[in-house]
């Protein structure tokens, strides 16, 4: 009996917190399908009779053209993920399979590079990007983001490749495969789960970044979704509720979908990346 009461209490507390983490997103989602009047008059109603896609239409194809920000975000974050994973696989492979002088030092450098907060590099970085002529360009965000994520991905993958037995590659070498064939046909397929963990994490981190993107990309046409969202809010935040809820929903939906499908990988990756700057 006592057990039952305390269990009920536990479930009540947990359910309350769950409500507190989930309901805000449900509220945003429901309201994104309502016209402005029903948002400001009854934001708790369920949009059945008042269902509309106008907010999404306005957000995506209206004055701010969020669809373009989506593409920008995917170009930026996609490139970051591809380059980071490619370089990290090479580096992790070398760190795990070869014995060479300076390996320990390199490992130390990789760890140290995870500790730099973006604040501590942003000003020289900004001037460097101006001199390189890529300030205000996608590359100006992509290159620093690659650098910022490389160490994390490399360390995660090194740990994983270390756990793969060397016999895996032996027969491939005997069959006359070269080193790149071994990496792409043997190592990569076997390290798929670690690679996807790293890739998802790098994607999330890049997609959700605001600080760097908002400093480097000032041109509205080039803004990725976070930066454009802030821009919209500073111009319309207080008045256009429909547009605001749809915009918030639009930035969150792809990530929520990704999260629901891949939550195991994401939770694992974020825990591994916890010490990152």
């Amino acid at each position, binding site marked *: 009996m006592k057990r039952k009461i305390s269990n009920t209490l536990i479930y009540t507390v947990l359910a309350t917190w769950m409500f507190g983490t989930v309901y805000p997103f449900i509220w945003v989602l429901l309201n994104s399908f309502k016209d402005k009047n029903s948002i400001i008059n009854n934001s708790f109603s369920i949009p059945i009779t008042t269902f509309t896609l106008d907010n999404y239409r306005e957000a995506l194809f209206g004055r701010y053209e969020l669809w373009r920000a989506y593409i920008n975000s995917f170009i930026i974050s996609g490139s970051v993920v591809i380059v980071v994973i490619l370089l990290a696989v090479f580096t992790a492979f070398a760190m795990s399979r070869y014995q060479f002088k300076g390996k320990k030092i390199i490992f130390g450098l990789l760890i140290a590079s995870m500790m730099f907060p973006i*604040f501590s590099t*942003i*000003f020289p970085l900004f*001037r460097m990007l101006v001199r390189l002529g890529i300030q205000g360009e996608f590359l100006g965000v992509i290159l620093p983001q690659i650098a910022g994520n490389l160490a994390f991905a490399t360390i995660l993958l090194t740990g994983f490749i270390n756990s793969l037995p060397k016999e895996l590659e032996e027969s491939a070498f005997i069959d006359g495969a070269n080193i790149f064939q071994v990496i792409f046909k043997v190592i990569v397929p076997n390290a798929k789960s670690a690679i996807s963990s790293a890739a998802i994490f790098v994607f999330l981190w890049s997609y*959700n970044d605001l600080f760097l993107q908002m400093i480097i990309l000032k041109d509205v046409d080039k803004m990725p979704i976070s930066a454009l969202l802030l821009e919209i809010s500073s111009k319309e935040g207080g008045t256009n509720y429909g547009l605001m809820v749809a915009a918030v929903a639009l930035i969150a939906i792809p990530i929520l979908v990704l*999260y629901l499908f891949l939550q195991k990988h*994401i939770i694992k990756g974020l825990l591994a990346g916890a010490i990152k700057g």
Partner: protein
Amino acid sequence: MYKSKIMPWVFIIPTLAFIFVFLFYPFGVNIYTSFFKFRSVLDQNPEFVGLHNYVDLIKDDTFVRSFVNTLILVGLVLVLQVGTALILALLVNQITKLSSLFKVTFFMPIVISATALGLMFNLFYDYDYGMFNQLLLNIGEEKFFWMDPANLVRRYLLTMLPVIWQYVGFYFIIFLTALYGISEEVLEAAEIDGCSDFKKAIIIKIPLLQNVMRTVVVLAITGTLKVFDLPHIISPNGYPSGKLHVLGTYMYEKAFSSNQLGVAASFAVIMVIAGVLFSALTNTVLKQNKDI
């Protein structure tokens, strides 16, 4: 099979190049920059001023305020965020059903960008048609000016609420993973001795979390020192009149609206030093217990 002395470097050099060019080099330049006075972002002949930028900052009231605001936030994060996470983890550790549902939902806010969360909370707090005020109207109350700049304490707390709320799930997962690692034997022995669940949590589980707690506290402190997005969106430029700045937002304002690059650089150096000092302090206070 892996005898080559050159191949590993072929694989590693691109990574090293990225890290040196975009992290180590700017980090070094930033320290150097902090000793100079710049008249514009691209000033070619900055003037060497020694520690002047640091002195200027320490004398700056808004800097002191942003520092204090950040320290209070660190306190709130440690008590409310880490505390809530610990309680939730202990509770989920007690139950058998639905624990994965709680895990997935508690962690969810972490994957969403702080930009979206900030704008979402702005929609909650809004005076005219915000969610909170609609709720008040629905239960027959009057509207309430949640973000009244005249009430600094309340506005500060509401600005920081999403910062605290967002990451509870993160520390919750860390604690829960550690709790699942506690050996059954210890807990069974306690049960035979007649220990209640509550007592077990207090005298066995929490002490066994000491090492994890240390990691969590370091992560929470260093993470909080870097907070930028949410305060920047909810109380822009430390509104009202810079009183609600945190370190991150004030540094941003210093650098990009007032063009004081040298001062901003020394600001960044101070933030890094503060992070290192706090981590060292935590590691001394919460000693690593090698027995667990």
